[in-house]
């Protein structure tokens, strides 16, 4: 059994393919570990209570909320954040679609929306706008950019289908 005491227990997080050794207490969430310790500020803190989706990241390819995940729990698992989507400077199809469709206003929810959308497409939930709305419902946008977000997800899903041969 792995035990970590009150402080000073280093944990290894694999974030976007790089290993980070972080000296953090057990109470540090994955969200705070990313922002305050790994200095990756793309993942946003909205409600910090599992209600808004702004902190959505992928753990072993599945979308989860970083604010309700303890960093210690995901030690050794593959964590992907918004910073890990672009490859060699070229944006992910979902990132491009969000820009093309102007799928944001203030932008605060956007990295969570995009991380959620990538997973939503991979899960095969983009067959209709109704399905997109249902399976994107965990990401709130207080600016109300929903129609453009749905359009961007629909468009990106088609782009990713066409580009499947390239694995993107």
């Amino acid at each position, binding site marked *: *059994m*792995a*035990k970590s005491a009150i402080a000073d227990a280093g944990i290894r997080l694999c974030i976007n393919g790089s290993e980070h050794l972080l000296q953090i207490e*057990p109470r540090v969430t994955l969200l705070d570990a990313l922002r305050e310790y790994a200095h990756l500020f793309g993942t946003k803190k909205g409600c910090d209570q599992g209600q808004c*989706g702004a902190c959505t990241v992928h753990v072993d390819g599945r979308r*989860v909320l970083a604010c309700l995940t303890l960093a210690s*729990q995901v030690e050794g698992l593959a964590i992907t954040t918004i910073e890990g989507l672009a490859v060699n400077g070229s944006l992910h199809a979902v990132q491009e679609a969000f820009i093309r469709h102007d799928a944001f206003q203030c932008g605060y929810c956007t990295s969570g929306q995009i991380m959620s959308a990538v997973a939503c497409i991979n899960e095969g939930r983009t067959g209709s706008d109704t399905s997109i709305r249902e399976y994107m419902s965990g990401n709130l946008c207080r600016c109300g950019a929903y129609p453009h977000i749905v359009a961007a997800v629909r468009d990106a899903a088609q782009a990713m289908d066409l580009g499947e041969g390239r694995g993107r």
Partner: protein
Amino acid sequence: MNNFEYVRATAIPDALRAVADQAGSRFLAGGTTMVDLMKCGVEVPSALIDITRLPGLDTIEAGPASVRIGALSRMSDVADHPTIRKEFPVLSESLWRGASAQLRNMATIGGNLMQRTRCSYFREPGVYSACNKRNPGSGCAALEGVNRGHAVLGTSPSCIATNPGDFAVALVAFDAAVYVENGKPRRIPIDDFFTLPGDTPDVEHPLSPGELIVAVEIPTSPALRRSHYLKVRDRESYEFAVASAAVGLELEADGRTIRDVRVALGGIATRPWRARTVEAALVGRTFDEPTVRAASRLATEGAVDHGEDRFKIDLAPRVVARALLTVGGTS
């Protein structure tokens, strides 16, 4: 959030021992309830025993006689299981209509059964001191407070907090059992797993300290194969039920006489609520809309409202009726 000791268990006996060894320690699975309530100041564990890497507890076996779901199965995996989706719709529907895609990827089936009420007075100890569930003997702020979301069935003068579950409603309708372990295995019928608040609303389950849920088992039946979960809520998705119904139906060979019917309600009671009087009023009768509507009205017999939650007494029977008419193919 208070600090605590973190222990990652890698075998069931280790997890049981770790909890036994330290007073105030709790199991940690998906964290969607525990970490949330720790941030609210409701849960203040001295240690968290992370059970998410225990082997063998995330299997799903959908056999001819029963569906057995390991306690660490994630809500999303159970909801998407091909056999469960196709053969036992209420189990899948009650899961994917709960929470959001992200939370369903995190939350486990065992944790889902242990989720706590969404009562604001329970969740905000810094603002409201009176909550018998959180602090026995302190009173109930919801009785005279904002109680639109509160329960009208199974309440007591001590507590009117609603059980927020969806999946548990399906389990109650279809006679599931919960398997727990603490050295030796124990089977708890689902009806006994959720206790009424009475004078002790802080006690919600008959679990002994350190007992670990290892699986849930649902016996299959023709009614489970013809089943449905209807959830009515304030927004279309990602919201708790104001009233919900898990129903199942089996007709005689004549295609119209009711042989077996199951009805359980969510969102309106202090525990997932089996409506046996509705079932009894329907068995042996001809399935038609007037009969279904009349029987459904029995669902909230004896209900007690607290002002703002009064609408649920009228709403819940309609939800039951619509769910039954949907599985009966007449709606």
